[in-house]
C-alpha cells in the first residue's frame, strides 16, 4: 500500500471504520513509514483531545431569554433585525458608504424651502430660475405646465451668504387698486409700460420680449417659448417694481390660481432699497417689523408679507 492511499484511509482507520484486512494493511505500512506513522499519531492524539474538550454550559438566563424572544412576534423580530442588523441585507460596506454620501449630497444640495433662501447668492448673474418657477411667474398656459404653487428661485451656489441670512421683514397691506396707483405714480419706465401693455392685451409674446421688459438679458433664455401674460393683480406690479430696482427675487409664495402672494422675498442693493420702498408705497401700506438696517455696500434681503387687498 502506498502513502497516498494510506493517508486517505487513516481518518477512517482511527475511527475504526475499516475492514480488518484494510486495517492490517494500514498498520503494516505505518510500521515502516515515518510520515504515515506521524500522521496516525497526530490523528489519535487529535481525537483524544477533541473528545475531552470540556462541555460548555448554557447561561443561567438562557430559558428566560428564550421565552422572551419566543413571545416576540416573528414579524417584529424581522423588523428589528432589518433595522439594527442591516448587514443581513448583505450590503457591501462600500455600497453603504456610497448611499450615505448620496444622502448627504441630497441633504446639502436639495434643501428645504427655508434653507433655499439661505443658499441664494446676492449676485443676480448667478441666479438660476427654475423653468417651472419662471413659467408660473408669467402665468404660463396651463396646457404647458400647470403649477400648483409658484416655486422658489434658487441659486446655483451658496457663496457669500453667511452674513445675509437675516431678512428685513415688511408687513405690506395692499390697496384695492394698485394698477392705477402705478400709473398715477408716473413710473418713468418705458419697458415697464410696454410690459403692462402686453399684459393688458393678454397677448402671446416671445419670451425674449418679456425678458427685455424685465431688463433681463435675452442670452439667459434657453429657448423661445410662447408665454401668455395674464393679469395677476397688484402682486405682478409689485414684482415688476422689485425687478426694475435691480433686485433679485429669491422666493415667492403665491397661489397659481389667484395670482395672489402671501410673501415675496428679494435681495436688493442697499442703495436701491429706499427708492423701491417709496415706489411700493403706491401699492399699499408698508410697515417694517423692525427699523430699516443701515445702508451701505452690498445687498440686503427683504421680505414683503402681504396682509390684504
Amino acid at each position, binding site marked *: 500500500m502506498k502513502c497516498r492511499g494510506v493517508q486517505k484511509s487513516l481518518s477512517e482507520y482511527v*475511527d475504526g471504520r475499516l475492514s480488518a484486512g484494510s486495517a492490517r494493511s494500514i498498520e503494516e505500512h505505518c510500521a515502516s513509514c515515518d510520515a504515515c506513522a506521524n500522521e496516525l499519531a*497526530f490523528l489519535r492524539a487529535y481525537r483524544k483531545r477533541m473528545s475531552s474538550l470540556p462541555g460548555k*454550559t448554557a*447561561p443561567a438566563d438562557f430559558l428566560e431569554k428564550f421565552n422572551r424572544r*419566543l413571545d416576540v412576534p416573528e414579524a417584529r423580530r424581522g423588523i428589528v433585525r432589518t433595522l439594527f442588523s442591516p448587514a443581513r441585507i448583505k450590503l457591501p460596506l462600500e455600497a453603504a458608504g456610497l448611499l450615505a454620501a448620496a444622502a448627504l449630497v441630497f441633504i446639502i444640495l436639495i434643501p428645504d424651502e427655508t434653507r433655499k433662501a439661505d443658499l441664494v447668492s446676492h449676485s443676480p448673474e448667478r441666479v438660476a430660475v427654475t423653468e417651472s418657477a419662471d413659467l408660473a411667474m408669467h402665468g404660463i398656459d396651463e396646457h404647458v405646465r400647470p403649477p400648483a404653487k409658484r416655486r422658489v428661485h434658487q441659486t446655483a451656489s451658496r457663496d457669500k451668504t453667511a452674513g445675509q441670512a437675516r431678512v428685513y421683514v415688511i408687513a405690506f397691506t395692499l390697496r384695492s387698486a394698485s394698477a392705477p396707483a402705478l400709473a398715477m405714480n408716473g413710473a418713468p419706465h418705458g419697458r415697464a409700460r410696454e410690459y403692462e401693455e402686453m399684459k393688458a392685451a393678454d397677448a402671446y409674446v416671445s419670451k425674449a420680449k418679456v425678458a427685455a421688459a424685465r431688463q433681463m438679458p435675452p442670452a439667459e433664455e434657453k429657448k423661445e417659448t410662447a408665454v401668455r401674460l395674464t393679469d395677476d393683480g397688484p402682486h405682478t406690479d409689485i414684482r415688476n417694481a422689485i425687478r426694475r430696482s435691480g433686485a433679485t427675487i429669491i422666493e415667492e409664495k403665491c397661489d397659481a390660481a389667484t395670482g395672489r402672494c402671501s410673501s415675496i422675498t428679494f435681495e436688493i442693493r442697499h442703495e436701491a432699497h429706499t427708492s423701491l420702498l417709496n415706489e411700493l408705497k403706491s401699492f399699499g401700506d408698508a410697515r417694517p417689523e423692525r427699523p430699516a438696517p443701515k445702508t451701505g455696500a452690498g445687498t440686503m434681503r427683504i421680505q414683503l408679507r402681504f396682509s390684504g387687498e
Partner: protein
Amino acid sequence: MKRNLSTTQRDDGTLVRETLAGDRRAYDLLVLRHGDMLYNLCFRMLGDYDEASDCAQDAFIRAYRALESFRGDAAFTTWLYRIAVNTCRNRLASADYRRSRKAVRLEGTGADDALLPENGRASFSNPTERFERGEREALIQRALDALPPDEKAVAVLCDIEGRSYEETAALTGVPLGTVKSRLARARRRLRSKLEGVV
C-alpha cells in the same frame, strides 16, 4: 443552566405532545433538558459565547414553531440537533457574522475562560496547568473557526460530540460518503494548525 431534575421524568415525546396540546411549560422542560447540549454545539460551531446563546435560542424557537411538523420518526434530539446545525450554518454564512468575526474580539475563546470555575475547570488547582489548558483550547477553537462551515459541522459532530458517521449524516443531511470525505479533509486542515498543540 440549572436543571430541575424532578421534572425530567417524562420523555421527550411526551413533552412534545404536551407542548402541542398547549402546555408551554412542557417545552420549557425540553429547553432545560437539551439547552446545554445545543449551546455547546453552537459554541463549537461559532466560537463565541453570545453568538452560541443566541443561536441555540434561535434553534429552540424554530423547533417550537415547527413542532407540529415533528412526526416522531426520529428522536426529538436528532430533529432538534439538525435544526441547530442548520441554524449555525446559516449564521456562519450570514454577512454580519462574517463581519463580526473580522472585528477584534475583546473576549478570548478559551484561554481566559480557563479561569472560570463555571466552565468546569475549577478542579485544576495548578494555575499553570489551567492556563495551558485554556490556551490549548483557544488554539483548537481558532483552528475550528478557520474551517469551512460544512467541514466544521462534521468535525464538531464526529470529533467533539462523538457522533457516529451515520448520525452525522442524518444531522447534516448529507450522504455517508460525504461525511467521511469532509471529515478527512477537516482533519487534514486541522493538522496543519494543531500539530504540536494536541
